């Protein structure tokens, strides 16, 4: 059985295993097919290099998952209901897991990360239950014409930023790998996603509720600002996805930098308000999420929090840490009753 971490972000769907392998796929799905002439002869690596979407066959329908804009009309689902599954999410899961594991049949224990504000909403228990109902069991389909199945035996739902904390502190078997003083100290995580900004603080294994907050001040603000600026300056406004992709490729251009600086200011203000005067007491501030890949956002946060730690890959740090936590679920199942099996 393998341990996997799933970080179903609004921008990208990330999946990792406890050994450190990761796969990232844009959280975009459309119904359609790639012309056979384009697809023929493309292996997994060539497909990734060419940024072709994965073709996932579920029943009678073929979904394109990932880089679909050039092949099908993308169905953006930024609502919270998507965490309960549905064909688009199933297609994303199969596509991402296929990118990670390749062809075959696999058994897994999974830890799934959801945004903090989703887990603190009044209907959080219902959301967690629907994630479990969706994930526990068999996920079978054909990806790029190849048979693929993932049987998920145990699921644990966690706050997304906990993934970064576990990536920082746990080893591949899910055991604490840093000095015990780091475990006892107060550590904060700032997770900047496309649509969410989560602040999380942990001390001696306890979540500090006072410093744990979730909001919707993510990179999306920069994408919205860019769309406004482009409409004003060039008479054409990109979609949010297009704006996000444009920023990733052209963030250094004046118009991109302007949009990112606006988002960075809002993000830093939110973090200052959330962490308040505890900042000097923090052993480390872990910066994670796709938003940290943008230099203006990362640099502003690092100036404000001198004890900031940026993981090797902030985009996938949550998924990696979740996978390491999932390794604990496998150990539990070996050691005694796990209680997480459906």
């Amino acid at each position, binding site marked *: 059985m393998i341990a996997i971490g799933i970080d179903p972000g609004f921008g990208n769907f990330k999946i990792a295993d406890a050994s450190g392998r990761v796969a990232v796929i844009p959280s975009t799905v459309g119904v359609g097919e790639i012309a056979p002439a384009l697809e023929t002869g493309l292996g997994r690596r060539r497909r990734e290099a060419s940024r072709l979407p994965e073709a996932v066959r579920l029943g009678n329908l073929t979904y394109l998952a990932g880089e679909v804009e050039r092949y099908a009309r993308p169905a953006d689902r930024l609502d919270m209901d998507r965490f309960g599954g549905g064909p688009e999410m199933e297609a994303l899961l199969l596509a991402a897991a296929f990118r990670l594991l390749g062809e075959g049949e696999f058994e897994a224990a999974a830890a799934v990360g959801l945004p903090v504000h989703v*887990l603190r909403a009044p209907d959080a228990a219902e959301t*967690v239950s629907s994630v479990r109902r969706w994930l526990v069991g068999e996920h079978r389909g054909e990806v790029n014409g190849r048979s693929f199945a993932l049987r998920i035996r145990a699921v644990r739902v*966690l706050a997304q930023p906990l993934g970064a904390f576990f990536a920082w502190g746990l080893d591949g078997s899910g055991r*604490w790998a840093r000095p015990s003083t780091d475990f006892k100290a107060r550590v904060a995580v700032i997770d900047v996603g496309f649509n969410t900004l989560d602040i999380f603080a942990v001390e001696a*294994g*306890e979540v500090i509720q006072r410093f744990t907050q979730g909001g919707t001040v993510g990179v999306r603000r920069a994408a919205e600002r860019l769309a406004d600026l482009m409409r004003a300056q060039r008479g054409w406004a990109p979609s949010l996805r297009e704006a996000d992709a444009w920023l990733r490729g052209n963030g250094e251009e004046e118009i991109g930098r302007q949009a990112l600086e606006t988002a960075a200011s809002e993000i830093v203000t939110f973090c200052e308000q959330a962490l308040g005067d505890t900042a000097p007491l923090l052993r480390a501030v872990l910066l994670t999420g796709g938003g940290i890949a943008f230099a203006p956002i990362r640099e502003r946060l690092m100036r404000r929090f001198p004890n900031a730690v940026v993981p090797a890959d902030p985009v996938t740090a949550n998924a990696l840490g979740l996978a390491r936590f999932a390794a*604990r679920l496998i150990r539990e199942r070996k050691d005694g009753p796990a209680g997480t099996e459906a």
Partner: protein
Amino acid sequence: MGRRGRRPKPQRPVRVVVTLSLDPVRDGDLVEMLTRAPSGTRAALVKAALRGADLRAFLPVPEEEAIEAALDRLGESFDADV
């Protein structure tokens, strides 16, 4: 002014002094238990042992175990097992 402090018990406690000579090998478990017992709990530990209690509750939890248990609790912060 009224009397201060704890009221004396009606009977005087019976004080029993037992001197244990423990073999470091054969009685190693007892040596460890008595020396690792937190300050002020050794007498309570002996009384509980004489009554046949499970003595593990008297021992401090090793740090690694405490971290493991805390990690488990942390993983359940938002998702109690079904």
